[in-house]
């Protein structure tokens, strides 16, 4: 306040006196002070702001509840029309006939997500170990911003890359080779020869979640006290033995949390998956079958959902299922991660 030149200060005082005449309630305490310069005394201003700010702090909690409530309200007809089991585990999806079974979509989502994690987790773990235990300082300082940068690339770009590179690769290289190599295993057999398949979706998602897994796991490794490693090395263990017997067991919850975060990211990813996965309503049985994840279902059909009865309820129900599942995985991982990094 003292920075104001006197003239401006007088102006402020004048205006605040006029205003304070209009409003009474809060100022009783302020009036007792001999030199009141502003509208409110410092302490009552603080109290007022404190109360406002508390309102803001409550806002995210209320917002989350409102989100769940709104989706629940919209989806309610579908839950009341049949049982929850029919909706979640029904195999038939014929909106025009009134059949809404989410099973093909839920299995599609799980196929793609687990596929992605299967591909992404081992190399990401190894890369994180490398970065935390072996890499030079220069490599680290160069990789950290790069990972942040790549984690920020929009999913639609990953999707475009998938259409351009991954889908043709799966169609022309991976699918024919694996199909002829493992001609007895149903997991690799299909009648879908387009390349738009579970495998393409899984590969694109794997690359999308890689920066997340690497940076979380890396952070977890670094949170581990150096003394533990030193003790193991002092006993004559090689560096890999130290990692295998000390670093990895000690950071297992953190690694799981990182994978959990990646899982929920992959689970809820829409655009990248939608563009490469084929979108055929079926329960996929092989890596090269097309799938139709939950997110793609919502994104593809919102336009026509108002014209068919119950369709909107079914789609909002799908969104609710998605949200609750992701919420579950996320809060579990966040809980573990907070315990480890001491947040």
């Amino acid at each position: 306040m003292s920075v104001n030149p006197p003239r401006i200060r007088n102006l402020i005082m004048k205006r605040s006196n006029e205003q304070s005449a209009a409003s009474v309630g809060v100022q009783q305490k302020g009036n007792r002070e001999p030199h009141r310069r502003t509208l409110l005394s410092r302490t009552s201003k603080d109290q007022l702001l404190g109360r406002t700010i508390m309102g803001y702090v409550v806002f995210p909690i209320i917002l989350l509840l409102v989100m769940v409530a709104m989706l629940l309200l919209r989806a309610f007809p579908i839950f009341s029309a049949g049982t929850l089991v029919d909706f979640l585990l029904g195999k038939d999806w014929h909106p025009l006939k009134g059949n809404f079974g989410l099973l093909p979509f839920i299995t599609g989502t799980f196929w793609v997500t687990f596929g992605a994690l299967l591909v992404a987790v081992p190399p990401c773990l190894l890369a994180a170990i490398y970065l935390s235990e072996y890499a030079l300082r220069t490599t680290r300082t160069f990789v950290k911003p790069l990972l942040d940068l790549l984690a920020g690339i929009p999913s639609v770009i990953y999707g475009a890359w998938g259409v351009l590179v991954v889908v043709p690769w799966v169609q022309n290289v991976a699918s024919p080779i694996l199909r002829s190599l493992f001609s007895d295993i149903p997991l690799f057999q299909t009648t879908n020869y387009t390349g738009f398949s579970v495998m393409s979706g899984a590969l694109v998602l794997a690359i999308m979640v890689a920066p997340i897994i690497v940076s979380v796991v890396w952070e977890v490794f670094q949170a581990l006290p150096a003394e533990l490693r030193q003790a193991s090395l002092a006993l004559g263990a090689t560096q890999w033995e130290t990692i295998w017997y000390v670093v990895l067991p000690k950071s297992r919850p953190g690694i799981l949390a990182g994978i959990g975060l990646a899982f929920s990211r992959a689970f809820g990813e829409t655009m990248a998956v939608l563009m490469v996965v084929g979108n055929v309503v079926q329960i996929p049985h092989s890596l090269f079958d097309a799938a139709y994840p939950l997110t793609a279902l919502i994104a593809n059909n919102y336009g026509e959902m108002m014209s068919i009865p119950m369709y909107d309820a079914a789609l909002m129900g799908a969104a609710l299922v998605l949200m609750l599942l992701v919420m579950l995985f996320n809060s579990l991982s966040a809980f573990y991660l907070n315990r480890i990094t001491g947040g």
Partner: protein
Amino acid sequence: MKFKWNRRLLWEQLMKNLMLLSFMLIVGSLFAILITVIQKGAPAINIEIITQIPQGGYYLGEGGGILNAIVGSIYLACGGTLIAFLVSIPIVLGLNVYARKTALASAARLALDVMWGTPSIVYGAFGFTCMMALGLRSSLLAGILILGLLELPILVRTMDEYIRMMPFEMMESAFALGATNWEASWAVVVRQALPVFATAILLAFGRGIGDAASVLFTAGYTDRIPESLMDPVASLPLAVFFQLSMPYQAVQQRGYAAALVLTVIILTTSLAARLLSRGLSRHVIK
């Protein structure tokens, strides 16, 4: 002593090389994405594409550009970031000063974490239900509000993580000088956290401008540049998506151009965030 290979050392070498290999694989494939985008987008991009809105027959390969999507995306992301930032400041101050170490603060943090993880398509669906309840149509305003919601947890949690690490003695010395909570948070917290404010804003902006699924429901898509908050608005991610799914080569080319523009915007924001936070950190007392 003669060096002898044994099983342990072989294993060590093997794993080390495997790690190096997977590290290269990850970094390499991520670079491959950038290279593909540039390779495909660079020949497709020209002045016409970034300065014109779609003309008649655009989606059959006739003239025009993606200015509608560029401007629309910037409107959406700027509006969303602005709203989210204005709401996030009091939340951050509340979490770290007024409600410090209370159950309310940890509940709010949990809610924000859950919101951060919520897929953007769920935000889209939520926005859509709200719009139906209020009888609104897809518009710039709806898009801005939903992006604001999407960006809010990013902003709050990024700033919060940083401010939480700040030594509380700084606040205490302000209190010792007789500062109220508000004065202390304004003079200490906000000043100390300036660099992270910049980083968080740009991070949230990047997330907002790249998000397609939430905007798909709430902002719609149009070939024109919106004139009011109630008009529908195009956006870059959707321009990429729609144009790549067209069967015409010429339209797909523009999709690649849009992808390149989007990538460049994201990379610039990300770089700017780094530089800005470095520049602003000279106000910080270490």
